[in-house]
């Protein structure tokens, strides 16, 4: 009877210990400018490379950095910045502006100003934007392009009803994806297959003929590597999606701004595309690719 009692007490103690351990969230600082910053990125190559660039450059300047580079979408990153879980995230001007209820636009300076206003109420700051632009690209295989004589998105108008679109699961809710295609191009696909965020699943599905049109990102190295054809955005559905870091205003200081702006200034679209290809095509690690770039540009 004594032995039973003792094992029950021991069991209860272990459970209590486990509960306490679980409740004590061991993850690092809250990043409120106390030298500890959390970088959040969505889980696709380019965003991860950018996240790593920010992280490594800040670490070289003596900051304590935590990385969360596999988040699923803006719907996760934005609330995370607002709650302080994430301090810095690489973003795209127009898409973020529209996401937050703005109008977007094709002039980056204009959209940047718009975004500054939209973010001010949210306790966030958008830093200087890069000349590097990454927009959604609607992509087909060479065969599909020649079969249906496609070179621009507007060419899809008549035949989209026979084709399948594949892309990120949030496509049906993104202005620059399905709703925009319908509004601006009058294009309605026969079916939509939710795959991944401009990643290997979409590439494989397109190459294998499982989908006819894929949504990839314009700087994706896989496009050239697979001989895909990017349909020209002739009616300007896509807008000024220049890369710019978004930072929680509380965590921001001049030094951080200087470092991140330096990175944005050193980037342009061809460079970003080449870096992306190193990850998606050459299978290199985003951290290594970022390090290479920072060193080559003399940023660290």
């Amino acid at each position, binding site marked *: 009877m004594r032995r039973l009692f003792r094992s029950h007490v021991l069991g209860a103690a272990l459970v209590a210990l486990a509960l306490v351990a679980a409740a004590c969230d061991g993850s690092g600082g809250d990043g409120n400018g106390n030298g500890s910053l959390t970088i959040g990125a969505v889980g696709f190559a380019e965003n991860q490379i950018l996240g790593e660039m920010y992280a490594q450059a800040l670490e070289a300047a003596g900051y304590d950095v935590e990385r969360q580079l596999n988040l699923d979408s803006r719907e996760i990153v934005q609330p995370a910045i607002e709650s302080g879980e994430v301090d810095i995230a690489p973003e795209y001007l127009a898409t973020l502006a529209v996401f937050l209820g703005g109008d977007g636009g094709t002039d980056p300076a204009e959209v940047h100003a718009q975004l500054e206003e939209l973010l001010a109420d949210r306790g966030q700051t958008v830093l200087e934007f890069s000349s590097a632009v990454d927009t959604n690209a609607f992509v087909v295989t060479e065969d599909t392009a020649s079969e249906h004589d496609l070179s621009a998105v507007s060419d899809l108008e008549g035949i989209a009803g026979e084709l399948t679109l594949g892309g990120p*699961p*949030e496509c049906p809710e993104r202005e620059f994806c399905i709703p925009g295609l319908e509004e601006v191009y009058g294009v309605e696909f026969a079916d939509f297959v*939710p795959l991944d965020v401009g990643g290997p*699943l979409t590439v494989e*599905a397109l190459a*294998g003929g*499982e989908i006819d049109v894929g949504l990839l990102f314009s700087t994706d190295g896989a496009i050239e590597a697979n001989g895909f054809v990017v349909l020209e955005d002739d009616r300007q559905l896509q807008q000024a999606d220049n890369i710019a870091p978004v930072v929680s205003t509380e965590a921001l200081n001049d030094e951080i701004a200087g470092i991140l702006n330096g990175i944005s200034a050193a980037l342009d679209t061809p460079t970003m595309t080449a870096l992306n290809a190193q990850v998606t095509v050459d299978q290199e690690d985003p951290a290594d690719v970022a390090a290479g770039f920072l060193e080559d540009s003399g940023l660290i």
Partner: protein
Amino acid sequence: MSEPGFFADVWSYLTTADNWTGSLGIRTLFVEHVWMSLLAIGIAFAIAFPVALAIGHRRKAEFLVVSISNAGRAIPSLAILAFLVPFSIRLGLGIGFWPTMVALVALAIPPLVTNTYIGIQEVDPDIVEAARGMGMTERRVLWGIEVPLAVPLIVAGLRIAMLTVIATATLAALVGWGGLGRLIVDGFAVQNRPKIFAGALLVASLAIGVDLLLGWAGRRLSPRTSGDLSERQAKANAAAAVG
């Protein structure tokens, strides 16, 4: 999440007609989920049943049951999925259906093998010997005595396998296929939490419903389990085979 508003949103999601129609609508996803699960169990059963019967009846190579069972529990379904997707595409078999099917079959086989084997193996050897002694063929012994007595355990194995398969079939959504997992994955991508919850609720309801159904079916199919009765039944079978 504990506000009544959240559950009202979930209810509203489930009762909006629009959400039930179309290729990503609840009805389609539900049907896809059910028939993917049935197909997986069917394939797994076709593989597991004969193997377990052979091992249990002949009482040879019994170590295999333990090996299969342990290997099965160690299988990382997600890894199988990720690994097989490129092959599936290259072979022109679609993106996510067959990789998920392989993972589900792999998960379902161990409980089916284990339970069928134990069910056969637990049949009183005296009965089996008596039957053989009376001249029953091996096949009659197996199908007339061992299998009927093993039915409760076989059905129990089916229930376990079915639950696992229904719950895990949600993974198909991660690799571009359908099924109720779609509600969870797509809901997550846009942080539509009522949708995520609705998806989880539907999967759980399906699993519980099927489990209850199989429980009832198991009771209907089992011979009377009072020890005396089943022995008498077995001896009766044995006598009928000879006389």
